[in-house]
């Protein structure tokens, strides 16, 4: 019990920090878990830390955005230009209302996750793990990734590249594939995230922080209809592969109209929807083993490293996980409606130093990855430099690295499905 409380508190700490500080990505939680991947922590602890930190990032992202005009996480960027149109009184109300919206969306979503895991799991419906359903789910996910990518041909190329390097322990593949593995053997997913996303992001100029006012939270009865509608939008957007939270934010923001020439309701809708989406992404991961965004991709890889099967384990831990999440949401609500000035000042102080703080954190994580990967330092540097060059190329052309990451993690399962499907077709 004490260990669960401790893990929850640590997850909350990481979630609040990653939510307030834009340089810390939304997947900071699972990145930190890589440090402990060899320590055989129970799956419940891993999932609690992951989900609590992840939802906290989304919960607190709006505070940094509204108070300092620095988006705490990427999905808040859509309403950045609207911040200047809000008066100080409106901002005070908005801070409270977005906290209510995030709380309602998060609570409802985690209860939905619990219901689906308990009543629509492969133990009850083994056909969920049948190759046809799995193949449709994977193809649908890849189709949506290609559709949302710009340009689409680049997404297709990145997916093919990911599919080439991902398979593991697959002796149904031809000999030439094993020859190809010589070039990338020994890579880790963390190394890929580092090279393709995090290191290139250190070289992006920081945004200018806006003038910070004194805030005292003012509560009023928020527009419940907007919160309910945005929660539903977030739930549907949450199962879309790729940038689920950003899609939820954009959809909810665009479907809400301005009232009295104020973007207030649009921001409330956006901040509610993304909190639902980040919890809902767990559903395909828990019941089909299908990770659909960066966060679930990393978590899936952590499970693979520990040889844990999320589909087999999840029904045993979903109830305590849900209870912890409900408690975490209550605590997040309290924290996000108090200490606002402290958060704003912290963001202000740390913002310009964040790149260095992040660089130090990354180096610590590289050490852990280097320890775990058990390849030579020379090989590690060769692979990391290779992926970093690849990351800069992707950034130069303004492509997204997500299709590549997605394909790397899913390729093992996807290639197996492909091999089996060919055999099933031949057998007919």
């Amino acid at each position, binding site marked *: 019990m004490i260990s669960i409380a401790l893990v929850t508190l640590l997850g909350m700490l990481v979630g609040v920090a990653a939510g307030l500080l834009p340089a810390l990505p939304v997947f900071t939680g699972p990145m930190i878990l890589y440090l402990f991947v*060899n320590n*055989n922590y129970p799956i419940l602890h891993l999932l609690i830390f992951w989900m609590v930190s992840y939802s906290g990032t989304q919960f607190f992202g709006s505070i940094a955005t509204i108070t300092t005009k620095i988006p705490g996480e990427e999905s808040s960027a859509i309403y950045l230009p609207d911040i200047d149109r809000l008066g100080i009184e409106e901002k005070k109300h908005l801070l409270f209302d977005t906290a209510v919206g995030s709380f309602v969306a998060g609570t409802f979503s985690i209860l939905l996750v619990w219901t689906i895991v308990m009543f629509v799991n*492969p133990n009850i419906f*083994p*056909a*969920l*793990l*049948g*190759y*046809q359903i799995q193949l449709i789910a994977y193809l649908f996910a890849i189709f949506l990734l290609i559709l949302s990518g710009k340009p689409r041909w680049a997404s297709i190329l990145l997916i093919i590249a990911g599919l080439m390097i991902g398979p*593991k*322990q*697959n*002796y*149904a*593949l031809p*000999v030439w594939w*094993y020859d190809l*593995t010589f070039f990338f*053997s*020994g890579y880790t997913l963390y190394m890929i995230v580092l090279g393709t996303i995090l290191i290139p992001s*250190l*070289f992006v100029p920081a945004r200018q922080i806006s003038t910070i006012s004194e805030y005292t939270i003012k509560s009023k009865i928020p527009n419940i209809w907007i919160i309910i509608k945005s929660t539903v939008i977030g739930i549907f957007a949450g199962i879309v592969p790729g940038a689920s939270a950003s899609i939820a934010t954009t959809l909810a923001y665009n479907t809400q109209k301005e009232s009295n020439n104020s973007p207030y309701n649009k921001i409330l809708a956006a901040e509610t929807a993304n909190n639902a989406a980040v919890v809902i992404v767990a559903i395909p991961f828990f019941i089909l083993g299908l990770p659909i965004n960066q966060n679930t991709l990393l978590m899936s890889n952590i499970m*693979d*490293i*520990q*040889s844990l*099967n999320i589909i087999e384990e999840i029904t045993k831990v979903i109830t305590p996980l849900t209870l912890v999440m409900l408690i975490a949401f209550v605590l997040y609500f309290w924290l996000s409606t108090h200490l606002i000035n402290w958060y704003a000042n912290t963001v202000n102080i740390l913002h310009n130093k964040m*790149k260095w703080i992040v*660089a130090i954190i990354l*180096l610590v994580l*590289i*050490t852990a990855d*280097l*320890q775990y990967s*058990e*390849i*030579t*330092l020379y090989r590690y*540097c060769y692979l990391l430099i290779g992926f970093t060059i690849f990351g800069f190329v992707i950034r130069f052309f303004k492509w997204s690295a997500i299709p590549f990451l997605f394909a790397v993690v899913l390729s093992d399962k996807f290639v*197996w499905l492909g*091999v*089996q499907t060919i*055999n*099933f077709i*031949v*057998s007919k």
Partner: protein
Amino acid sequence: MKKIIVICLALIGLGLLHDSNKSNTKITVINMSSPASPAGVFAQAVKKTVDGDWYQSSHCSQGHDAFTNIKNSVVVYNSSVAFAALNKQLKNCQIPKNVLISAVAKTPMHICKLLNGTTDLERDKVKLGMASMYAVKKHQDQFNNQSRNGSVQLIPYSGSKTVLKALLAGDIEWGWMGSGLANKNSNKIQCEWTTDKTDKTKQFLGDKFSRLTIPDFAINVVIYTADKKTAEKVTALLKENKEFNKYTKTSGFTINTEPTQQDVDNINQIVQKMYNTWSN
């Protein structure tokens, strides 16, 4: 530029730290098989017994690289993977010379269908799921030469666990899986066939499919290490640990903690026989 220099210096520092940390005394268990295979589950049990770290290799050559890099490491070798490596021309996947063998173990396979399954392996047209390394055409032909009115189509999977999932999902009619996993799921599946000659509760595959060259197939596991003290420690723990002994009883593995060179030679011969029989 300043950032790049600082990051490079820090990386060099980390490299030095990386090398200095290599002298830890904790045992690392390297699994060269799929986590879904009986040998993968066996490796997990070994890891638990020695309270060690875990290293899951992408393929067996990479497992060998890890073995040379990690000081106190033990490899859980799998004869089926060694055969697949010969077939795919992968290097360093056989039992190395000059290593110390802590134990050898083996488990037979059961061939199972759902409790309400109505197909007959001998007579009907069926899909039989098995691990990818031996779900090959030559093996399939040996099954089909003996089937009278139907044909057996072999479908490749990563290991016994994924075969079981496919069987439960209804993708395949029959599944070839480790005896431990099969016994554990006896409330869902029935195993009419076995590769274990001595098991009188099931039909021995070789009795009816007499043209199968390896009807007595088993997964052979070898636990080896480069360090004498580590070898002795692992052997002692495997002998004494009650949990591990309980595991071997339920998993269908028979374990030998005092292996001779002859035992190792026999396993190498089995691998060669698989290669001669099933290779592309």
